């Protein structure tokens, strides 16, 4: 034994010396190893495995590597040897030890591979273990024997022995595992953090030590790079979140006010994105080219302030009204020239103007519909009534709440919702009060309709009056009268929703449904207001066009008089130059429409901000500071702090967007204005919500409301494009202003481009393609395709529902089965117990009657159980 130990020690030392030399060549040969077929690799792993356990494996490996092809047989041989006679095996080993030189030559490549793998860490480690399981039991037993033998003869090495290495590796693995599972541990945060830091340090310190020599350095480098890469990825993720604008603000609001308020801000942000793109289109393709390459200000009548207005064209009041210099600038339709191509780029200005107008609307349609479709995917079909209480129990908490007050509110609202649900259940069985509820709901709707009609009439009246004022001349009326329409519209838009809110208290709906009703009502109100406004505008357009006709006549007379007055007989003299400001011009209804929209937007924005400042901020300040010296509790009592009005704000946003879509064609500055407005209102409203509002008393999740907003947006988009398209298609453009002047219709610009800018065949193809005979079938095909897709999606939904139902029934079936099994098992147990308890008695008494009685009893119980199960089944 002692001799053996000595020999082993020697061998060990030799091997270690060799290892360093081998490691240097390992890099080259590792590659070689990878190319080798799997059989050898497997064997290699097996060997490594054994080596990992100790030097017993090492012996065998050394034996094996002598010759690759006969390694297996040799190994088996050696195993048998060990089993049969230890001494003999050792002798064999000794012989092998003698010719280490040869062994090294043959096995170098393998060892190199092994070293590398060793350094590679845990993945290989796992593989090894897997392999180990696969090895036959015979091998295992032999290896264990060898291990035992080895442990006896182990001595402490100076450097890291493989065993220690193994231990270290295990420890490192353990730490790594700990790091990955730390999150789920039921520890306090401080302990978690401490453990995390410690483990990280440990892993960092010892992971590098696992490799050896050069590979160790490389390994360390690799690990470092991996870590850097991971850190970079994490930073990049953080960066990405930081790049999402206002994300932090919205999250904060969400934590304080619940997701319904946050959904408004998310919607606002989304809207901002859309408007940025609209703004980019109009600004980049319309406004900037005209400003840079178009004819400059003052070069022609449409680009000059008329002589009569010149005196006060720069006054603030005029500019604020978007008259004067603002009117004669790129901000409005009338400023643009009908020159076909401008600048050295030959920019097709009128075409660009038209296409941008169409493109913005088309883009908006696309985005809204796409978002709707995406949102629709999220809520799979299914009824919400089946597991009402389970849903309430498990899903009613809003996990984003981070504010104790809101959490309290949420808690209270959940309890009340439970109470209400229970009451509802009771009432649905009684349903004696349903008539009263119905009556109240009908009454509420009637009141709302009255209110809508009243407000509609008021706006109609005001618009009529303003037309009268306009005919009489605006200068003779006060500011109030001139701005009556806007004022009344804004005020009604502000106060009517409050009235609706009060009325809706009659209906006693769930807040989510109440919110939708409220949204629908305000929608109707706004729509009525908007369409009254548009009808008034249409009247005004007709007036302007009549005026234009008159002016056209006068124009020729004026020109004639000009020529006649200054020129005598000689008509060959150079034409007289009249300053463009003096030339009479048409009323340009397009600019008028654009101005109206811009004014509306501005006044709307102002009203919103002022309401915010007075209604929320001032009130909050008063409540907060007057509360110290007031006779009742202002905070909890009468004025209190305001709640954030989700429905009103959402609708304000949507209608604002509708106006932008409507007016953007006639006033290219509208998207820019809207971007500004949205930007400011994002900050202002975020601030106002956080500083002056209190969380709603009934906080509820806004899970389904996003698509509701989108649907309303789509409706508004459609309704706002209608009048715009109507004006573009039916009304001829003004003769002396705008990019389409001189054409009979605005869309003639396309025709013109096709004729002059494209080759002839293209025009021909286009004319064929636009032939009704081709267009109609195409449209029909599209409708059919849409119908087909819709019906397939419907059938999918149906199938989904069926599957859900199936799953449910299956579940119930399973439950039943398990219950039956449990019952049966219980019965069997009972029987067995009885049998056991009765067996000795029977033996003792040997009473046959008792036995029969027991059997009878058992059958009776069985009947009972089965009938019970049957009844239970019927119940379900």
């Amino acid at each position, binding site marked *: 034994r002692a001799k053996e130990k000595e020999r082993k020690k020697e061998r060990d030392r030799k091997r270690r010396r060799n290892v360093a030399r081998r490691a240097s060549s390992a890099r080259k040969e590792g590659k070689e190893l990878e190319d080798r077929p799997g059989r050898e690799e497997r064997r290699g792993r097996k060997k490594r495995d054994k080596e990992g356990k100790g030097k017993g494996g090492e012996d065998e490996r050394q034996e094996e590597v002598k010759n690759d092809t006969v390694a297996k047989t040799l190994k088996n041989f050696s195993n048998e040897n060990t089993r049969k006679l230890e001494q003999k095996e050792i002798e064999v080993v000794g012989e092998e030890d003698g010719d280490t030189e040869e062994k090294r030559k043959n096995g170098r490549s393998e060892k190199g591979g092994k070293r590398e793998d060793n350094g590679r860490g845990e993945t290989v480690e796992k593989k090894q273990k897997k392999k180990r399981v696969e090895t036959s039991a015979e091998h295992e037993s032999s290896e264990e024997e060898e291990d035992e033998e080895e442990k006896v003869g182990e001595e402490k090495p100076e450097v890291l022995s493989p065993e220690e290495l193994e231990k270290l590796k295990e420890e490192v693995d353990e730490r790594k595992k700990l790091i990955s599972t730390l999150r789920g541990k039921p520890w306090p945060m401080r302990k978690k953090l401490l453990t995390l830091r410690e483990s990280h340090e440990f892993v960092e310190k010892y992971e590098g030590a696992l490799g050896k020599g050069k590979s160790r350095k490389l390994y360390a480098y690799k690990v470092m790079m991996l870590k850097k890469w991971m850190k970079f990825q994490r930073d990049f993720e953080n960066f990405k979140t930081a790049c999402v604008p206002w994300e932090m603000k919205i999250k904060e609001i969400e934590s304080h006010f619940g997701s319904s308020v946050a959904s408004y801000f998310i919607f606002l942000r989304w809207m901002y994105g859309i408007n940025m793109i609209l703004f980019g289109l109009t600004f980049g393709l319309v406004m900037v080219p005209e400003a840079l390459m178009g004819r400059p200000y003052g070069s022609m009548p449409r680009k000059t302030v008329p002589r009569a207005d010149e005196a006060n064209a720069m006054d603030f009041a005029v500019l604020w009204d978007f008259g004067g210099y603002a009117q004669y600038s790129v901000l409005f339709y009338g400023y643009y020239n009908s020159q076909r191509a401008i600048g050295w780029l030959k920019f097709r200005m009128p075409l660009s103007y038209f296409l941008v107008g169409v493109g913005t609307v088309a883009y908006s349609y696309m985005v809204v519909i796409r978002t709707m479709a995406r949102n629709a995917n999220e809520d799979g079909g299914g009824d919400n009534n089946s597991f009402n209480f389970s849903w309430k129990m498990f899903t009613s908490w809003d996990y984003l709440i981070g504010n104790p007050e809101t959490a309290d509110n949420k808690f209270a609202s959940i309890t009340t919702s439970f109470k209400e649900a229970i009451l509802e259940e009771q009432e649905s069985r009684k349903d004696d009060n349903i008539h009263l509820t119905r009556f109240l709901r009908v009454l509420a709707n009637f009141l709302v309709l009255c*209110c809508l009609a009243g*407000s509609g009439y*008021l706006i109609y*009246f*005001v618009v009529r*009056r303003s037309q009268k004022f306009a005919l009489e001349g605006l200068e003779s009326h*006060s500011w*109030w*009268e001139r701005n*009556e329409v806007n*004022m*009344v519209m804004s*005020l*009604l838009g502000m*106060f*009517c929703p*409050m*009235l609706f*809110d*009060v*009325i809706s208290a009659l209906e006693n709906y769930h807040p989510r449904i109440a919110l939708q009703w409220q949204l629908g009502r305000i929608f109707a109100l706004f729509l009525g207001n908007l369409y009254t406004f548009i009808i008034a505008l249409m009247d005004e357009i007709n007036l302007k066009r009549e005026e234009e006709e008159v002016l056209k006549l006068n124009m020729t007379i004026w020109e004639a008089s000009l020529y006649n007055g200054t020129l005598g007989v000689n008509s060959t003299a150079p034409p007289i130059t009249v300053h463009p400001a003096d030339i009479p011009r048409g009323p340009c209804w397009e600019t008028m429409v654009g101005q109206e929209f811009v004014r509306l937007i501005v006044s709307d924005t102002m009203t919103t901000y002022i309401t915010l400042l007075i209604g929320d901020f001032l009130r909050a300040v008063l409540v907060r500071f007057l*509360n110290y010296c007031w*006779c*009742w*509790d202002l*905070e*909890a*009592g*009468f004025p209190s702090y305001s709640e954030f009005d989700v429905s009103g704000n959402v609708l304000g946003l949507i209608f604002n967007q509708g106006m932008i879509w409507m007016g953007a064609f006639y006033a290219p500055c509208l998207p820019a204005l809207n971007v500004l407005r949205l930007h400011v209102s994002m900050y202002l409203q975020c601030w106002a919500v956080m500083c002056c509002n209190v969380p709603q008393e009934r906080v509820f999740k806004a899970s389904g409301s996003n698509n509701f907003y989108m649907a309303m947006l789509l409706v508004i988009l459609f309704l706002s494009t209608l009048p715009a398209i109507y004006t573009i298609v039916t009304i001829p453009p003004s003769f002396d202003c705008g990019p389409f002047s001189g054409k009979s219709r605005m869309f003639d610009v396309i025709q013109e481009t096709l004729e002059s800018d494209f080759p002839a065949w293209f025009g021909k193809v286009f004319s064929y393609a636009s032939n009704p005979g081709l267009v109609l079938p195409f449209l029909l095909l599209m409708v059919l395709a849409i119908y087909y897709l819709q019906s397939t999606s419907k059938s999918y939904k149906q199938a989904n529902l069926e599957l859900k139902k199936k799953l449910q029934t299956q579940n119930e079936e399973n439950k039943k089965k398990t219950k039956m099994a449990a019952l049966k098992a219980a019965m069997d147990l009972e029987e067995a117990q009885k049998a056991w308890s009765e067996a000795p008695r029977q033996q003792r008494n040997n009473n046959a009657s008792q036995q029969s009685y027991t059997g009878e009893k058992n059958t009776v119980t069985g009947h009972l159980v089965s009938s019970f199960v049957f009844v239970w089944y019927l119940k379900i």
Partner: protein
Amino acid sequence: MSCCISTMVSGAIALAFLPLVLTFIIRYRYYFVLFYRAVLVRMWYDCTTGLSREERAFQYVLTHAIPGDPESILETFDLWCSKVEFISNIGPKKGKIMDRILSEHCPLTVLELGSHCGYSTVRIARALPLGARLYSVEMDAINAAIAEKIIRLAGFDDDTLIVSPSDEVIPRLRADYGLERLDFVFMDHWKKCYRPDLQALEGSGLLGKGSVVLADNVLFPGAPNFLRHVRKSGLYEWKIHRATLEYSKGIRDGMAELVYQGIK
């Protein structure tokens, strides 16, 4: 001037404010009703009868209730307060909550701050166990006289009343009345005195572990300072029983129930 205003603000704009006015009227209708009943009707009766409100209530109770029956007296009070005029008693709904709390704790020494007409005194006295002692503090002498009559009418001892402001009484309770500990304190006097009185009670050492303090009207008219103090001091386990204001349906109010825990 008037023509100027009429031209300045046109009728249409004024009409646009109509929804706002309607909203206010509908939303705060209970407050308007309360204002009418508690202020306008009272002023009218004060002028026509020449008696104070409490005296009128006492006359009504005297003529309509059965003497010696606290139940009947309370009912008559409720009837008068809901049908004829308004007096801010504790009312039947909140009274039930108070009865429940009293029956839960079975206090032996009870202090009532603000007995007003004696409604709440009778209510508490009715619910007390045998051998319990009730002290009722009332600042106004005229009211106190009426309260005494009512208490006597209900068949209870009449030496429960202390006619003096509460902030003067509390420091003297131990010395003058030989009190060691208060099991139950009911507060229904001036809302502004809630907090100073509570602090005085804490300072006097009369509150022991498990003593209950019940404060009425903490939400409307409201005692924000009191609630703030309760929240911050950490001496109490507290909860608010939400209810509506007495004899009114739509105004929310609450009673704060504090259980003294002592300094931990």
